[in-house]
Each structure stands twice: as structure tokens, then as C-alpha cells.
């Protein structure tokens, strides 16, 4: 059962990584304009979301 001692922390670390990624995406303004992003993908030029 000692395998759990490092498997569970690894699982939690990966989960936290996901949570961190989500919070980063939130902070970087990727949820500001959900309808716009769906249309922007049709545009070939590079552009980035506005950061607050």
C-alpha cells in the first residue's frame, strides 16, 4: 500500500496543475468574450486577448 504514499500526491499535484491552469486562463482574460473567441478562430491573423 506504500505505493499510495507517492501516487496520491502525484494525482493531487496534477489536479492542482489543472486548477492553476484554469485560474491562469481566467486571469488572463480568456473568459471575457466567449462569443468573440468562437469567431476569431476564423481569422488567420495572430492576436492575443487583452490582459487586465
Amino acid at each position, binding site marked *: 500500500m506504500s505505493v499510495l504514499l507517492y501516487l496520491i500526491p502525484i494525482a493531487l499535484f496534477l489536479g492542482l496543475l489543472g*486548477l492553476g491552469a484554469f485560474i491562469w486562463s*481566467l486571469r488572463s482574460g480568456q*473568459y*471575457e*468574450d*466567449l462569443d*468573440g473567441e468562437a469567431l476569431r478562430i476564423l481569422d488567420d491573423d495572430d492576436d492575443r486577448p*487583452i490582459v487586465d
Partner: protein
Amino acid sequence: MGCCGVRYDDECAAPGSAAIWVRQNDDGGYELNLVVPGIHCAACISTIEKGLKELPGLGEARVNFSLKQVRARWTDPEFDPESIVAKLDELGYAARPFDPSDAGFGVDDRESRELLRALAVAGFAAGNIMFLSISVWAGAEGATRDFFHWVSALLALPAIAYSGRPFFRSAWNALSRARMNMDVPISLAVLTAAMMSLYQVANHQQHAYFDAAVSLLFFLLIGRYLDHRMRARARSAVSQLMTLAATGATVLDEEGRKRFLPMDALQNGMRVLVAAGERIPVDGVVEEGDTDVDVSLITGESNPERVGPGARVYAGAMNLTGPVVVRLTAHGEDTFLSEIIRLMATAEESRSAYVRLADRLAGYYAPVVHVLAGATLFGWLWWTNFDWPVSLLHAISVLIITCPCALGLAVPAVQVVASGVLFRNGVMIKDGSALERMADVDTVIFDKTGTLTMGEPKLSERGPVSIESLAVAAGLAAGSAHPLSRAIVKAVEERGIEPETVTGVVEHPGRGLSGTWRGRSVRLGSLEWCGVRDEAALSSDMPQLALAVEGRQPVVFSFTDTLRPDAAETVRRLKAAGLRVEMISGDREGPVRAVAEELDLDGWKAAWSPQQKLAYVEGLAEAGRKVLMVGDGINDAPALAAGYASMAPSTASDIGRTAADMVFVGASLRAVWLAREVSVRSRRLMTQNFVWAIAYNVFAVPVAMAGLASPLFAAVAMSASSIIVVANSLRLGLMDRNLDRSFALTTYGEAGERGGIRRKAA
């Protein structure tokens, strides 16, 4: 004052001075936010962004498609922000600068981000704890079980502390005001579950409820976030309508130079220039110029009023025919508008007394639950001969099992779906309790001008008018912005008549138009000016115009109001649903009676002041009636605030939209019927959800009181009841698909004839 909608599209292009709205950022850069209502497709985004990039000195421009806004940033202090508006205009987009902190966008944004972060944390914790809990339920024992429980505790406690804050805050607010709401039992259950589980784990016990506590928060946060986002979207749509209204005035200084000043900078005695086609921005006295003003938004009067030097004009009136200079006489405290605002403040107190359905239920629910938990504690103490730990455990598990997860979702889930259905159909709900109040309504009171009617006159079918006179009148009226002139031009187009050529047309503000037709002088205008002697015509209070051709008897054209599309059908449906439908108007008796008779209303009142309207609505409320007030004008605002529920069209005055619970876009009055229908269905679903949640408790509470509720039982029962409640609420979304589309798509102008046609109710 002003609006941008069905009635006066060209108002959006009113002059603006972008420099006033420029904000300086912390990093020293400049920022300008603009509302651009014309953004509607993918191409718009790249057209605007690429177009603005061409401006020298502009750092970046970003379109927000969902909000139909553009945010521009630059660092060069020399950059002229006016060029952004000019460039957008060149690209074909009307734009209006605004201050995002004024319109309330910034505040909403922070709140929704906080909810989303709380949701993410709760989701992460709930997922991982459930993972560990399943291993425990599957038979983990001894040290392994304790290890799993400790990891769960490590995840759950910070997650509860972080994600539970919206609930704890709201519960604390309610308790500190000696009130009860659903968040009180929710907070209590989550906190006791966490405490008890911690105690259990410390004592190497088998049962821990961390999973139940955190997934409860997770479910409830989903509901709360969706609810918040829906309302934020509706609110921002409403505040954008307001942003488009005039926020300043063109002021003339001593030397006659023009300057655009924002509202705050205006002072008594200033001279304001109002061009034809603009709204008068301030209360004042006309100093130069003659014109006709449309005061329908202020008084409900449908016939334009003639004003000349010395006449008083009020903010919100539409200047129709000639430019005027207005000297500002009242500003701030003593305007007509501030009188209306004082009336509204008294009227709104009655509405804030409304207690929401869920909170009313919580008032009964929470005491019952707490009594049951207490009874469990004492029952087990007696049964086990004062074994405190076991008795407390069972009492707390009653609290956890009865935690109103389904109850907490019962209202928000329905509300999210309902406001989604209404939003897609052009109705924006500003207040969460509006849906509940709307469902109770038993009387509907409409305003006339701008609400039941379009505020656009239409040439009456009655009366002998020759084709030739119509053609001459249309020739004269072709270039005029006066609503009656436009009605004549429209009538001629509809009848397929070719307008005669009239030369040398001159507009005489306040009187009419003159010109030359086949060598004879012709006049189209007020009856007196055209020399009409007919007593019957002169004493009529319907809007009228006369056409005088040199050497002939003058011809009188009479006008009626154009009803909003679907007005007749909407009134018929509301009456069929057992509601009393009335109309109160500030307009004169003739036009009001005509509309009332056409729509077969249960009652009508004409020539009423805002005070009378307010008194009438309050009187009905005292008599126990629940009134839905539908109106658009400044004069309707106090009555809108006093109504049990209220609606305003998006073309309404700013203050009308502010006072109303719901705002509908588009011309069709069907929105009123739809809003009520959706509200009634929502309430039915909410009741079903409550009944289900209570039935679940009736089954689960005895199990918990008997001490048989395991964490597995709690998790399964709570999730199942939440899912059932959400699934039931989603049924309302199906309504959107089943809506009577033919009613929705009734075309302009045929509403009147369709009143009698019986069709299946949606």
C-alpha cells in the same frame, strides 16, 4: 435623455467628445472604451481591429464581441481619441465612448470572476475527495482509511473556507438582520459536516462527510454562477442602451462658438443648441427659433407641440423641425426629471418589501430542520443512556442529510433557464425576483404612446381624401422630419401613388410646409394656417393636417396611432388568461379612446399626470391587486416603480428603463405575454422542485434520525435529488422550441386584423 431603438435610429450618431471618457491607467497609458452596437459578425471584428491599427499612435484596439464594445489603448499623450470615433464612423460603425466604471460593468466582472474561482476550487476538491471516498466505501480500512480521510480533510477544509465564502457572507447578512434565507441552513450543514468529519477522523472513525460538504458547495456554486452570469448579461445589455443616450449638450458661448459639454459641466444660464432630429438634453426656455417638439416620452401626448421663443421645454423631448437655442433654467434639483425621481423613491419602498419564494420557504424550513436535529439528539441521548458522541453524530447527520441542496438549486436552476429563454426572445430581466412577482400579476396596465402604440402616427382610413391631394401632400412632405409628414409619405408609398412634384418647398416650424405645384401655391400644415373653417374638424383632438391648394377648398387628413405589432393579440391573450387589461395615458381623450376601443380594453384613462398614474397604481395595490405596469415615458416612471412588476420597451426613456424590472427589445408587444407565460411556468416548476426536495427529506430524515445514514447514502441521495431538480428545470428550455412562431413573426401592420383569429396557445 434619448434612446436608440426602433423609433429614432439616427440618434446614435449624436455628437460626442471622446476626450471626456479617456482614462489614464496605472502604467501611464491611456484607455478609451466604446460601445459599438453594429458589431454582429466575424468580419466586423477584423475590420474594426485592422482599421484602428492604421491610426498612427494607437497602441492596441480590441473588440469584445459578446458585449459589443471596443477597448483602445495608447501611450502617446498627443494622440487624439476623437480619431477613433471618426475612424469607426468611416468604417461604418456608430460608436459611443463610455466609462466602464460608471455603467457598472467593472463591479459585475469582479463578482463573476470570484464565483468562477470559487467554483474551480470546489470542483477540484470535490473531484479528488470523491475519488478517495469511493476507495473508503470500497472497503479501505485501518491506516489506509485514516490516510485517505486525512488527505480529504487537507483538501476539504481550505476548499470550504475559500469556496464557501459567498454562502457564509449571505447567511451572515441575513442573520445579522434577523432574517432567514436558504444560505443559513446551507452554511450550517457545510460547517457542521466539516467539523464532525474532522472529529471522526481524529478518532479513527469510519464515517467522514468531507465529500458531501464539498460537492454540495460545488453544485450550489454552479447554480449561483450561471444565475449571476445571466443577470450580468441582461444588466450590461440594459446599461448599454443607456450609454447610447445623450450624455452631454452642445453649448454656445458668448461669441457663438459651439462646445460639447458633458451633463455634469452644464450650468444654469448656459445656451444650448439643439439641432432638428436631436433630443433636448436639458430643461429650459426657448430663446431662438421655432420648431415642433415630440413630447410623447415626457407626457404621453402623441401630437407634436409647437414651441417658439419663450416656451418652456423639458429634457427628453425630441426636436423635430427646426434648430433652437435653449437657455438652461433648471438643472440638477429642480428639473421635471428630479420631481419624477422623488416620486419614484417613495414608490419603490413597497417593492423592496417583497420576500423571495426561496427565502419565505427557508423561514419555515430551517426551524423544522433544526427542531428535528434537536429531537434526534435528545432521542438518542435517552436511548443510549447519555452517549454524547453517538447522539451528536446522529443529530449532525440529520443536518447534513436535510441540507437543502435541491432546495438551494430549486429556484436558481429555474431562473437561469427562464431568463435564458426570455433573453433569446428579447426580454432582459434586471431583478431576480421579477420572475416570481410577474407570475402573481392579475392586472396589466399599459401606457399608450410608445408602449401600446409605436409613437408613429398613421393616416386614418376614414374620410374622403382624393388620390390627387395625397400625391400633392406627399410631394410637399417628402423632405420633412415631422412625424405627420412622414406618415403621409408612408401612406402614399403603401397605396402605390406617385407623389406630385412640388417646387420651392419651405418648412415653417410650428406651422407647416409651403411650396408651388403646377403654378399654384400649396400649403400643408396646421388647420388654422391652411384656413380650415370646418367646426367639427377644428374641435377634434385627433392629430390632423390640412392641405390647402390655392383656389380650392382645404382638405383635412386625420391620423391615428400605429399599434405595436401583436398589440391586439397580446391583449387578447392576456385577457384570455384572466387578467384585467387597462390603459392609462397622458395623451388626450380622442386618441386614447380610439386605441382602447380598437383593443377592447377593460378600462382606460386619458390626460393623466405622472402623479395621477402613480396614485392609481398605488390605489390598486392597496385594494389587493397585483399590477404589472408597462410603460416607456418619463411620466410612467413613478407608476413603473410602484407596480408589483413592471416592463419597459428598450425605446423607453432612461428613467423608464431604470424603473422597470424587465426591458424588452424589438417592436412586438408579444414580449409582455411571453414574460408572463414564462414566469407562470417558472413558478410551476419551482413549486414542483420544492415539492420534490421536501418529499426527498420526508424519506431521508427518518433514515438519518434512525442513525442509518452513511456517507455513501448521503452522497447518492443528495446528488440524485439535485440532478432531478436540475433536469426538471431544464424542461422550461423546451418551451423555447414550442413557442408559437407565427405569433412571434407577425409582421408589422397586420396585427390589427389578426385579433379575432383563434390559434392554439403555445
